[in-house]
């Protein structure tokens, strides 16, 4: 088994072939936009890929945790509007950080309850998982409307996060750079957790061979609860960053992302966190490049991307071996 480098080349190749098609300035703007979108999608996808990888649980309600994070941000930011609008990047950053921390706590806590009450009953029954978690998503969307109303709620970026910086004639939105940095930071943290700690090693081992981890004396279900909580907390963070990016929150915010998130998992290889990062970046870039070059085929382009990758690598770019 030799290390397979080809999947690592896909991302740089896509970025390079886009360049001659659009000129340097557009390319710079769209590449940063694509990577930033990818970083936010990664936050939404990373937890889901581990949730599936470890227990084969298909959680179609994952999008609800994205939406939940966004609404929590709305509620957290409202009383802190003074800070958000203040001419002080420290206060601006504080609002953003508080929104992210509280949203992740709320999403993770609700995730914990959802795992105990709903998911636990349908382990090993994929059809029921689909029905029950889809139902959960629909119920959640109604609950959001009850709690936060049916109208879209604006969520303005803190002052210092707005605006652009100009590089090479290209106006790059600051917020995109912030989202990109956050996504990469979370990736590094997750990577360290999964490679340097015993719990992390157990998660990776469990994704590959759950039975063997149990035969070594570990309770994988307990581990899974932890993964579910972290995964839903990350979805909440993804929801906050996406909401600030869109500056608008609706009850469908997370549900609308679900298709993209599943495309990302399939492209990256189910169960692979690194794969979900690459998959998210590919989807983000494709969305932006195609949106510029051929706006009418935008969503279709991601499905085409998935089909092309699956034709080349039927189990995704970074498949997890199952022993």
């Amino acid at each position, binding site marked *: 088994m030799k290390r397979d480098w080809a999947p690592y080349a896909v991302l740089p190749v896509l970025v390079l072939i886009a360049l001659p098609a659009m000129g340097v300035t557009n390319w710079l703007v769209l590449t940063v936009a694509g990577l930033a979108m990818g970083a936010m999608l990664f936050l939404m996808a990373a937890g889901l890929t581990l949730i599936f990888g470890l227990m084969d649980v298909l959680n179609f309600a994952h999008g609800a945790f994205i939406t939940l994070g966004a609404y929590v941000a709305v509620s957290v930011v409202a009383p802190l509007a003074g800070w958000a609008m203040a001419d002080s990047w420290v206060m601006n950053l504080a609002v953003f950080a508080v929104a992210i921390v509280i949203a992740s706590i709320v999403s993770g806590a609700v995730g914990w309850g959802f795992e105990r009450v709903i998911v636990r009953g349908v382990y090993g029954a994929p059809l029921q998982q689909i029905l029950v978690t889809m139902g959960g998503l629909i119920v959640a969307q109604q609950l959001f409307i009850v709690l936060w109303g049916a109208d879209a709620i604006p969520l303005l970026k803190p002052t210092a996060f707005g605006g652009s910086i100009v590089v090479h004639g290209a106006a790059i939105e600051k917020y995109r750079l912030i989202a990109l940095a956050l996504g990469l930071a979370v990736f590094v943290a997750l990577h360290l957790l999964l490679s340097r700690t015993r719990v992390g090693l157990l998660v*990776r081992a469990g994704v590959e061979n759950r039975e063997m981890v149990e035969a070594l004396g*570990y309770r994988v279900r307990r581990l899974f609860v932890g993964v579910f909580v972290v995964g839903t907390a990350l979805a909440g963070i993804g929801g906050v960053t996406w909401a600030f990016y869109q500056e608008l929150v609706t009850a469908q915010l997370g549900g609308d992302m679900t298709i993209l998130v599943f495309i990302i998992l399939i492209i990256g290889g189910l169960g692979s966190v690194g794969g979900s990062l690459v998959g998210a970046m590919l989807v983000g870039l494709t969305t932006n490049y195609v949106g510029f070059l051929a706006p009418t085929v935008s969503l279709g382009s991601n499905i085409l991307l998935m089909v092309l990758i699956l034709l080349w690598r039927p189990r995704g770019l970074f498949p997890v*071996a199952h022993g």
Partner: protein
Amino acid sequence: MSDELLALHGIETRIGRYHILHGVDFAAQRGRVTMLLGRNGAGKTTTLRTVMGLWRASAGRIMFDGRDIAGLGTPDIARLGIAYVPETMGIFSQLTVRENLLLATGREGLTDERLDRLFSLFPALKERFAVPAGVLSGGQKQMLAIGRAVIEPRRLLVVDEPTKGLAPAVIQVLIDAFRRLKQSETTILLVEQNFHMAVSVGDDVAVMDDGRIVHTGSMADLAADDALQHRLLGFSLAVHQ
């Protein structure tokens, strides 16, 4: 009786709609190596998986050190001190050799003493310590799987066909390793089709056919009786290597 560390009484196992084990009875004596033999499809792997709680017995008792473990979950069974090496080895290919071993240890972790003992059993693992286990050869993977099972002292070692598909030189390494494990008084339950392995390490045998035990006795008696081997296994051990 008190010498039985593990004893199966009337174990029946169903996998989905299939009734695979029809009342399995045998015991593994403390400090001895019990060989579980039988033709392909006889139910050996299913028996070991049932002991480990990976399949649930629908009837019967599995007594481990005087306690019925048939209803326990796999992690609880493992924590009683039972190590399992599955037919597929169960190596975590993305983790390094060191990480694979580490996960099999408790609080003490990988002490130098433990590693020295491991490397003296399987020197090949020493230079591959830091590489992802997925890049190991088949033989090295099996050494890692067995090494992982014995890195901490265990009360019972359950091993499923360790020599399957391996070259004779590697098989010899495994035979030597099991001989040394025997000296440490570890109780071992071993499924094996390889003649050399069976006669060199086995003390007792239990032979399965079609989901039942059809013979129990000493390894020496079976090894000496060609006709019995033919009747029980459908071939002679000496020929089938």
